[in-house]
């Protein structure tokens, strides 16, 4: 009985997995099917065996880690080498179907047929003549009006073309003006031939391409584009430099301020209780709040503190940089104050006392004893904070949205954009989504963070050993 109870969670998981397998199988998603099958088998083996005790504790977290962290990282790496994005979403077959459908025009002299729109199990179809097949019923007028969008998208193959309806009562024959030649894999309109040039689009000899294209590997093109395309390289390098400046100054200023306060206030309880408030205030709300406070026309800072001045805190390129930096320091310095207070209290007082006995003044004690010990114990936190600020999307997005925008740059980029918000704009903002390029920049960011963190941690370990 007890064992049966213990196996209950496993049974539930297996039931869900079985459901997933059936669903994936019916959709022919064989890669995901294989992944789920292997995962389920491994889980069952771990929990049914009496050994493998550590695996029992690791399995749930590792499964989630593999799916939601490792897989997405690998997929990002893969997508960085493709032209994935708007106009390059699906497979070549999808692109051919879409291009041919898009080229259809009304056949000259074609008369509209009377038709009826039929429905079965929620699916719609066009009935041209004769009796409907079993199970199909005609739509009422009200239903035709209600489902207009679906009905105008209906396509019924007929007579070497396609029947389409605009009103749900009559249909007209359309024929594609382009034809696809499967043997050569090209599309032609009779005069121009659009060939598959291996770049994910049918392209004519003069360079004109049909839309949509499809997803293909483009090798390291996204990476080289970032570094060589004159329109992207300039903004990218500027954003890269600013990201470093922002992350380094954020850490340095907030740490300096926090440390100074921690030394001055000496762990005073009231100050600690008060300074924990801004630390606990959710950072995204703080950034939104400051956006209001720094508003040029109505903000408290201009209106009250500066007596009605009109300082463009968030709309001047340099002032905006200063503003996001100062706001970020405001968000972070109480945290650094708490860290430094804790670290200072952890230093054994006997060390300072011994130094004082030897005749060292308070300044000397601070410089040669407290600071080195403090740096050693807070170094990992500083490295982690640097990595966090390197990707501090919230503060930038909520305060300035990356702006003010650089009007000269061909891509949508502003003077406070960090690399991470640039990725966001490339992927989701603006007119055309370019997932491939966004993923490539993501990979670059990852490399930078990994390098800086590894160097930082190695340094920290040396400090600890010294």
């Amino acid at each position, binding site marked *: 009985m007890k064992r049966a109870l213990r196996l209950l969670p496993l049974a539930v998981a297996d039931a869900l997995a079985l459901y997933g397998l059936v669903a994936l199988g019916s959709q022919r998603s064989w890669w995901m099917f294989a992944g789920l099958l292997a995962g389920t088998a491994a889980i069952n083996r771990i929990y049914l065996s009496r050994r493998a005790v550590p695996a029992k504790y690791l399995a749930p977290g590792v499964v*989630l880690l593999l799916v939601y962290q490792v897989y997405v990282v690998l997929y990002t790496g893969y997508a960085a080498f493709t032209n994935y994005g708007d106009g390059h979403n699906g497979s070549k077959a999808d692109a051919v179907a879409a291009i041919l459908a898009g080229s259809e025009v009304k056949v000259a002299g074609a008369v509209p047929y009377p038709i009826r729109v039929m429905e079965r199990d929620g699916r719609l179809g066009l009935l041209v003549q004769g009796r409907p097949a079993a199970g199909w019923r005609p739509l009422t007028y009200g239903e035709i009006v209600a489902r207009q969008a679906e009905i105008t998208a209906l396509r019924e193959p007929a007579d070497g073309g396609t029947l389409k309806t605009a009103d749900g009562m009559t249909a007209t024959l359309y024929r594609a003006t382009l034809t696809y030649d499967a043997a050569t894999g090209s599309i032609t309109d009779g005069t121009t031939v659009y060939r598959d040039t291996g770049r994910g689009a049918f392209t004519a000899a003069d360079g004109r391409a049909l839309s949509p294209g499809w997803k293909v590997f483009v090798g390291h093109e996204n990476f080289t584009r970032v570094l060589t395309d004159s329109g992207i390289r300039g903004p990218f390098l500027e954003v890269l430099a600013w990201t470093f400046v922002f992350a380094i100054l954020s850490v340095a200023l907030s740490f300096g301020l926090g440390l100074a306060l921690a030394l001055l206030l000496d762990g005073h309880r009231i*100050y600690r209780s008060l300074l924990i408030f801004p630390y*606990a*205030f959710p950072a995204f709300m703080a950034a939104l709040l400051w956006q209001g406070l720094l508003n040029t026309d*109505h903000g408290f800072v201009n209106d*009250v503190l500066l007596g009605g001045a009109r300082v463009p805190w968030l709309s001047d390129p340099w002032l905006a940089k200063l503003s996001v930096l100062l706001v970020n320091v405001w968000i972070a310095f109480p945290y650094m104050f708490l860290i430094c207070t804790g670290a200072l209290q952890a230093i054994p007082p006997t060390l300072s006392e011994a130094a004082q006995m030897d005749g060292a003044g308070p300044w000397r004690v601070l410089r040669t004893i407290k600071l080195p010990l403090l740096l050693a114990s807070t170094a990992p936190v500083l490295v982690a904070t640097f*990595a966090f600020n390197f990707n501090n999307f919230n503060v930038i997005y909520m305060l300035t949205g990356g702006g003010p925008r650089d009007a000269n740059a061909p891509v949508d980029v502003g003077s406070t954009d960090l690399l991470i918000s640039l990725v966001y704009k490339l992927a989701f903002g603006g007119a055309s989504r370019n997932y491939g390029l966004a993923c490539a920049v993501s990979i670059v960011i990852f490399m930078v963070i990994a390098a800086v963190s590894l160097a930082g941690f190695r340094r920290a370990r040396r400090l600890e050993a010294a």
Partner: protein
Amino acid sequence: MRAWRHLAGLPAVAVALFPLVFVVAASLNPSGTLTGSNDLFAAVTWDHYATLFTDELHPFPRWFANSMAIGLITAAGSVFLGACAAYAFSRFRFRGRRAGLLGLVFIQLFPQVLAYVAIFLLLSAVKEVFPPLGLGSRLGLVMVYLGGALGVNTYLMKGFFDSVPKDLDDSAQIDGASHAQVFFLVLLPLVRPILVVVALFSFVATMNDFVIAGLVLTDPDQQTLAVGLYQLVSYQLGQSWGVFSAGALIGALPVLVLFQFLQRFITGGLTAGAVKT
């Protein structure tokens, strides 16, 4: 403490607390606009709080409930998964242990935010097969957060587990305790401070997440505070400032209260290397 030190302390506290005072004032100010809010406490009204809970355009109570539920489930899940993994790494010796630990530290360097394109596509695919975990599902969002739980927390928690002497589990095992009993009854009560810190930080991180929450949840009724309040401000800046302030205060309240109560745990956890996100 000498008096001149307050010369440094008081301005710092003023700068730190002033924006919070401003939010309180703005949330009570009858004008409700950004400009009007600059007369701090000139008049007091509770209208904005009433609007917040009755206005159907901005389902604030839903946002609040969503944020709390998502935050609490994620926090509980992260602590549980992290503690399990930390126990395995701290108390057992197995093949791939060192490589596993290093791998976790490494994978953690890749923030989930960087992979949001891939997360979006993954959840779209999941939605086709199993909608309760796909795009537009709150549970699906929790799963994404939990996927990052091991990477962020295991190393920190393992360090804490290591500081509990192994003799304790050995003697429990001699008394006939199973590995599960050692974990739940002996170790977990002893490492409570780190459990509290990890829970708190993952709760705060979840509350603060804007990117992934905005990506996964699109239906206004399912959105979280971060996404909802951002829209409230960005679409009509100035006009709904009073309502935003009221919402920000109520939204921040649970975290502020938690922090004050758990202060002593936090200072200890911070020095152990926890990072607020």
